[in-house]
C-alpha cells in the first residue's frame, strides 16, 4: 500500500499496479470503512487500483489521515463481496438500440447471438463510478468481447446505452458524448438526482445483464415514466 499526498486536501491510497480482485476488495473495504466512520472526509473516489480521499486540511492533517487508514486496514481483513447482492439490469440488445452490435460481432468474429449470450451470462463487479454522474466501470466482461472504442466519439449517446470499450463494459446514465461501442440499451434510469441514493450502482456492487425484447423494453420504459 502506497500513500501519496495528491494535494494539500487529498491523499491517494494505491493498493497495487494491476487490476486484481483482491486489490479491489481492499479498496472497497477501506472505502466502506471510511464512509461510515469519518465526517472530516469530504469525498471518496475509488479507482481501479486506488482510493482518493478528499478532506478538510484545516480539520485534519495528512499524518492523522494516514494513522486512521492504517488502523482501518489493520482491522478490516474481511471482504464485503459476499454480502453484496447481484443487481439485474434488463437490456434490449437490438440493432437500433445497440448500433455497434454488428461491428462488435465482426471485430470479435462471433455471431451476434453469441455476443449477447456472452455479455449477459457474466457477473460483473462495479469497480468504481466516474466520467459522469452514475457512470459505472464494470469489470469481469468475457475477454472474447473486447473491442476498441470508436475512432471518433459520438456527439450524443442516449441515456441507458450499454457499451464496450476494450475489456470494459458500462452503461451511460445520461445523454452525453461518448466513444464506447453501443450494443444495447436498458430502460432503467441508472441515475436520478432526486432519488436516494441517486444511482442504481455503488462501488463494490455486482451486476448481471438480463436480455429483454424490444416490446419488454418499451413496456418497462413506459412504466418508469
Amino acid at each position, binding site marked *: 500500500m502506497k500513500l501519496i499526498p495528491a494535494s494539500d486536501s487529498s491523499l491517494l491510497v494505491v493498493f497495487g499496479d494491476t487490476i486484481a480482485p483482491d486489490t479491489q476488495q481492499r479498496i472497497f473495504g477501506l472505502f466502506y470503512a471510511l464512509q461510515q466512520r469519518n465526517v472530516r472526509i469530504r469525498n471518496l473516489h475509488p479507482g481501479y487500483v486506488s*482510493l482518493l480521499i478528499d478532506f478538510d486540511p484545516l480539520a485534519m492533517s495528512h499524518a492523522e489521515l494516514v494513522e486512521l487508514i492504517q488502523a482501518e486496514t489493520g482491522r478490516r481483513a474481511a471482504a464485503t463481496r459476499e454480502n453484496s447482492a447481484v443487481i439485474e439490469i434488463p437490456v434490449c440488445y437490438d440493432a437500433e438500440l445497440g448500433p455497434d452490435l454488428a461491428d462488435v460481432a465482426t471485430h470479435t468474429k462471433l455471431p451476434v447471438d453469441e455476443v449477447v449470450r456472452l455479455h449477459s451470462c457474466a457477473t460483473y463487479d462495479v469497480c468504481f463510478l466516474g466520467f459522469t454522474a452514475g457512470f459505472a466501470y464494470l469489470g469481469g466482461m468475457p475477454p472474447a468481447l473486447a473491442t476498441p472504442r470508436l475512432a471518433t466519439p459520438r456527439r450524443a449517446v442516449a441515456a441507458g446505452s450499454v457499451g464496450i470499450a476494450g475489456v470494459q463494459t458500462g452503461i451511460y446514465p445520461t445523454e452525453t458524448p461518448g466513444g464506447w461501442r453501443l450494443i444495447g440499451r436498458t430502460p432503467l434510469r441508472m441515475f436520478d438526482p432526486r432519488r436516494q441514493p441517486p444511482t442504481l450502482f*455503488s462501488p463494490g456492487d455486482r451486476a448481471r445483464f438480463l436480455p429483454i425484447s424490444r416490446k419488454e423494453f418499451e413496456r418497462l420504459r413506459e412504466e418508469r415514466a
Partner: protein
Amino acid sequence: MSVRVLKPGLSTTVQDSGRFGYAHLGISPCGAADALSMRIANLLLGNREDAPVLEMTLLGTALEFLSTAEIVLSGADCDCRLGTDLIPTYTPTTIKAGAVLQCGNITNGARTYLAIRGGIEVPLVMSSASTDLRGGFGGHEGRRLKAGDVLRFGASAISRPRLLRRNALADLRRGEPIRVTQGAQSDWFAPEQYQKLLASSFRVSEQSDRAGLRLTGESAISLREQKQLLTDGIPLGAIQIPQDGQPIILFVDQQTTGGYPKIANVIAADMHRVGQLRPRDEVRFAEVSIPEAVEALRVQERWLQTAWQE
C-alpha cells in the same frame, strides 16, 4: 420575494459551496468557482456564508426585482447599473421593487457574484443548491438561467449586514503565480519536464470552462516513459498532462475520475484565483510544500474572520 431574469448573460448559474459526499457515485463538487468571493458577498449581507448566489461569467444578467432586495456584487469587476448609477462591488445596495439591475461586461476576472440578502431559494439536490451543468441537475432546473426565469429569495438572513475594512481586499494575492504542490504522479515526469511547468508562462485557452481550464505553453510537457495510468480519482485543482503535453487544470465541474497523469495540484488557498481566470489570461505556477499550502489556507481563513469593520 423574487426577481425575474430579463437577459441571462453568457453563463449564469445558481451556486453555493458545492456538493460533497457523492464523488464515489461520479458526482462532481460544482459550487462557486471563486468560493471566496461568494463567501464575502454573503457575509456582507448577513447571510450564511454558503447561501446560494448567482455566478455570472464574462457578461452579466439583467434582472427585474419583483420585490425590494438588498444585494452585493463581488468577485470580478462588473459594469452593473441601476438606471445610470453604477453599483460598486463589495457594497450592500438596496434595490427597490420594480427596478431593473443591468449587469454588463465583467472585467479584471471572469466571474462576478450577485448575492441577495436571504439567499436564492432553489430545491436542494443531494444537500446542495449548486448547478451541475454536465449532469443537468441542481440550481435552477439544472441549467444556466434564461430570459423569463423567476428566482425566489429568502425573507431573512442570520445577522445584520456589515462592511469590509478599508483596503481589506488589497491583502488578497493578485497577479502572482498560482501556487501548486506536487501531484499524485509528479514522479512520472523527469525533473526538467516538471520544471517546465514552473518556469513557463501559459495562456488560458478559449476551450476552458468550469470543468477544466486548458492551458497552452510554448513546449509540450512529456512523460519520462510512455505508460498508461489506470483510471484514478481526481482532486479539485489537479493539473493533468494529456497526450499533447499541454496542461489542464481540472476544476469545480470536473470528472471525479480520469486517466491522465497529474503533475501538480493548485493549493486550496489559490483555488478562488483559478475561478477568475479568463480565456487568453497568462498563468504562471510556483511550487510550495504541503505545510506551506495549509498555512496559506489558514492565513486566508483568518483574514476572512478579521476583514470586517468594527
